């Protein structure tokens, strides 16, 4: 009699524990993520067949170590300067075996569907492609990046979508920590002594970004002042006279195939500008390392801070910072590049 | 010899328009070319003016081989009045007449060119129209302007393709009188005329064309003889003697 009771009790106990586990399992599985359009995506489990058509998001997936889930990449990976990095990280890309069914502008819907994706990552502005994919039942994560908070959000969303939120949070924390490291030093600089920085896009000398932009964030974080911060536009063309009047202390050029800092220093119209007179015109060296749309943007912050306040950051070795960043973000994958 | 055309043939592809034409137009006289529509008169006149290429045949104007002339030399010798004028911009009459001086001008016309233009307009009697836009004129007035242009060019030979079309009666008379006057002064004129009567009344020599061939009138007969005209125009003709020549009417 006692044995039967004891067994019944044991059975109930086991059943109860099993039940709890089941409940717990059910709570973990569905993934709910809101993309940048405000649309909610619901996945039963982390995505395993991701077609990522945005290069910056793709680099994020590699940072997470979740590149195994990627089955389609943007076409521009195979052209241009970023190829060697991806080739070093992924044999499939090196051998050009990974399909590239689209990019920031054109998407071959058939090719994408042929890959049978369970998630597509794409710019939210590509509305036609998004509609075409969603109509066919593919979950689409639309991205739109304006400020650094958006970059963090993207990384965390990618973490959720791949079931690796922990690593995503770690990467974001690392980035924030690095920025704080520099913030502590530049925070002490009084407003009057802040260097004014003019940012130059590669499209033209007079193309810059003003108030509400990642460029502005970048400049502020590095302790400088954007020369045209008072204008709210994200990207616009300014008048040469204005640039002369703003008289920036530092000119930062986005990676430019056609021009070097020496071209600006030699340009007769720029001669009166403080940055030119003191030879402080610098160009960002690389697209991959300096991508403002990824967590790597903190490296640019460091570079600009060092250019703006060379004395203050005398002890900083940018080469070491770069190596440390690559290790922290990509692990061993880009060792020795 | 004003014009000497020898063995001239011309066509577009397989379409032959002129068959082995040989003709003579005397210098200092008013020669009229008559024939049905489509007989090739306009084409012949154009080739004689140098506007169409003379590939098969030989043409001499005032003793000079037309094929060997430069455009400037040709313009100094031959003036041509075409049938159709389609202006787009409303140049003033005097500006249009002035363009006749093109072969004498290098950059812009000089005083002499302006003087010749005035003279030409005066001769034709259109000086009162000089400041009017060409596009506002009637067909007849435009015709007179183009005649003035030819005169401003100061050629020695003038070729006219149906110069009397669009002109009213009085202007017809005026133009014909002008032509007679020019001939008296030594110009050679060859004109295509529509109406045989006008031709016979004003002209000195006559040429006939039919289906791209020159029709020679019988030696003993007058040009205004009914038999020649019947052949040329494929119509029965009746003649009425008039002032030593004849008036003709189709029946």
């Amino acid at each position: 009699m006692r044995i039967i009771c004891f067994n019944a009790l044991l059975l109930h106990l086991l059943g109860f524990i099993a039940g709890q586990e089941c409940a717990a399992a059910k709570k973990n599985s569905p993934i709910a993520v809101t993309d940048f359009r405000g649309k909610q995506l619901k996945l039963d489990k982390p995505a395993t067949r991701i077609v990522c058509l945005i290069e910056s998001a793709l680099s994020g997936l590699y940072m997470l170590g979740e590149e195994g889930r990627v089955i389609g990449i943007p076409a521009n990976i195979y052209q241009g300067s970023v190829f060697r990095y991806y080739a070093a990280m992924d044999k499939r890309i090196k051998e050009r075996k990974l399909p590239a069914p689209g990019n920031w502008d054109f998407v071959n819907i058939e090719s994408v569907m042929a890959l049978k994706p369970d998630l597509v990552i794409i710019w939210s502005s590509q509305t036609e492609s998004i509609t075409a994919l969603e109509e066919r039942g593919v979950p689409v994560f639309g991205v739109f990046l304006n400020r650094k908070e958006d970059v963090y959000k993207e990384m965390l969303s990618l973490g959720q979508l791949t079931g690796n939120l922990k690593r995503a949070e770690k990467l974001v924390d690392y980035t924030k920590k690095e920025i704080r490291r520099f913030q502590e030093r530049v925070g002490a600089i009084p407003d009057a002594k802040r260097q004014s920085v003019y940012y130059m896009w590669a499209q033209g000398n007079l193309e810059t970004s003003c108030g509400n932009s990642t460029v502005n964030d970048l400049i502020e974080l590095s302790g400088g002042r954007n020369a045209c911060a008072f204008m709210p536009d994200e990207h616009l063309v300014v008048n040469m006279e204005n640039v002369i009047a703003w008289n920036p202390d530092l000119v930062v050029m986005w990676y430019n195939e056609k021009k070097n800092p020496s071209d600006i220093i030699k340009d007769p119209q720029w001669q009166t500008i403080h940055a030119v007179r003191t030879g402080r015109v610098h160009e960002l060296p690389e697209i991959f390392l300096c991508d403002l749309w990824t967590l790597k943007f903190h490296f640019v912050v460091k570079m600009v801070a060092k250019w703006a306040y060379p004395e203050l950051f005398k002890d900083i070795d940018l080469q070491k910072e770069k190596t440390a960043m690559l290790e922290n973000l990509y692990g061993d994958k880009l060792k020795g590049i | 010899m004003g014009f000497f055309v020898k063995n001239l043939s011309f066509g577009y592809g397989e379409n032959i328009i002129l068959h082995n034409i040989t003709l003579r137009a005397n210098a200092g006289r008013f020669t009229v070319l008559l024939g049905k529509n489509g007989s090739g008169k306009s084409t012949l006149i154009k080739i004689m003016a140098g506007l169409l290429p003379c590939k098969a045949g030989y043409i001499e104007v005032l003793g000079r081989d037309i094929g060997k002339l430069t455009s400037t030399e040709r313009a100094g010798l031959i003036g041509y009045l075409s049938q159709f004028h389609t202006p787009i911009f409303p140049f003033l009459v005097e500006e249009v007449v002035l363009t006749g001086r093109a072969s004498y001008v290098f950059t812009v016309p000089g005083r002499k060119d302006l003087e010749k233009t005035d003279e030409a307009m005066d001769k034709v009697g259109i000086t009162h129209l000089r400041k009017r836009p060409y596009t506002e004129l009637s067909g007849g007035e435009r015709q007179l302007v183009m005649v003035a242009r030819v005169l401003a060019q100061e050629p020695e030979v003038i070729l006219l393709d149906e110069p009397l079309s669009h002109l009213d009666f009085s202007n017809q008379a005026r133009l014909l009188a002008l032509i007679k006057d020019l001939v008296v002064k030594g110009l050679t004129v060859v004109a295509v005329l529509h109406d045989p009567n006008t031709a016979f009344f004003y002209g000195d020599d006559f040429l006939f064309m039919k289906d791209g061939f020159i029709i020679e009138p019988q030696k003993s007969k007058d040009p205004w003889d009914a038999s020649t005209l019947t052949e040329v125009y494929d119509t029965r003709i009746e003649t009425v003697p008039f002032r030593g020549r004849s008036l003709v009417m189709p029946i």
Partner: protein
Amino acid sequence: MKPFFKQVIFYALPLPLIVVSLFVGPSNVVNTSDIIDWLMRSISFSPVPDAQNKQMVEAIVLGVRLPRVLLAFSIGSALTVSGNSFQALFRNPLVSPDILGLSSGAAFGAAIALSFPLLPLQPMAFVFGLLAVGLSYFLALTRKGVSTVSLILGGIIVSGIFTALLTMVQFLTDPFKLQTIVHWTMGNLHNASWSKVRSSALPILFGIAWLFVMRWRMNVIALGDEETKAVGLNPEKEKLLILIPATFIASASVAVAGMIGMVGLAVPHMVRMMTGPDNTKTQPVSIAFGGSFLLIVDNFSRTITSFEIPIGIFTTLIGGPFFIYLLKKSLMVCREV
């Protein structure tokens, strides 16, 4: 108004306009008194108390505004003279220098140069502009010479081909370069510099001078091919003698400033409205008025916003309605088309 006074106004207008234009610009930078001050001191060679300000005024007036003003004037003249010449040549008041594919060719040349770092921008645009016109001419050439209709048809074909090629380049390039290409084709004077003035001055002056010599002959051509032959000119030769310099100056203009619409089409009509169709009058007035027109429009675009809007937009928005007005009022100086 007496023709004499009209002429005086046209020929006397440019110089004072150019001087006044030097005072036009963002007023927060240098104001009128600064400039007058600087002018006075420069003329009298007296010492300047505020060297910094003097430098800035000089940099702006001489380095930025003067080249821009001169460039605007010369391009305005060039495009107007070119348009006027094309209209006489084609006996058609609706043609512009673009009719033979010049703009499409130049845009394609520029697009290639912008996509490949080693190719120089201005020469490529210039050469391809000429190439396009040459190709149109070649397509239209028959044993009998070149008729107006076949030239226009040739131009349409060539224009279409280069536009398609341009689209292909845009399709294949990355977003940054694409933006540069699009900006270039919109037309711009904000990158005006002395080097641009230097590189365009010679071809434009040369071409305008050549066309000036041809000005009376255009009257002859305008009456018709047969009429031209009758008075002793070779229409084929005369057409080429007009086509070549007109293409030259239009191509040089497009090479330094992109595509500025409407000037080659509408402004010659404005000129003809004032002078009549006699080209001995329209050519010199085209030079004076065409240059003044574009300069005034550029002054306007410079003052209206603090950032740069491509000037092609203004010329089209101003020229377009004016053209419609002319049509409606049957003020066009030509037979009804």
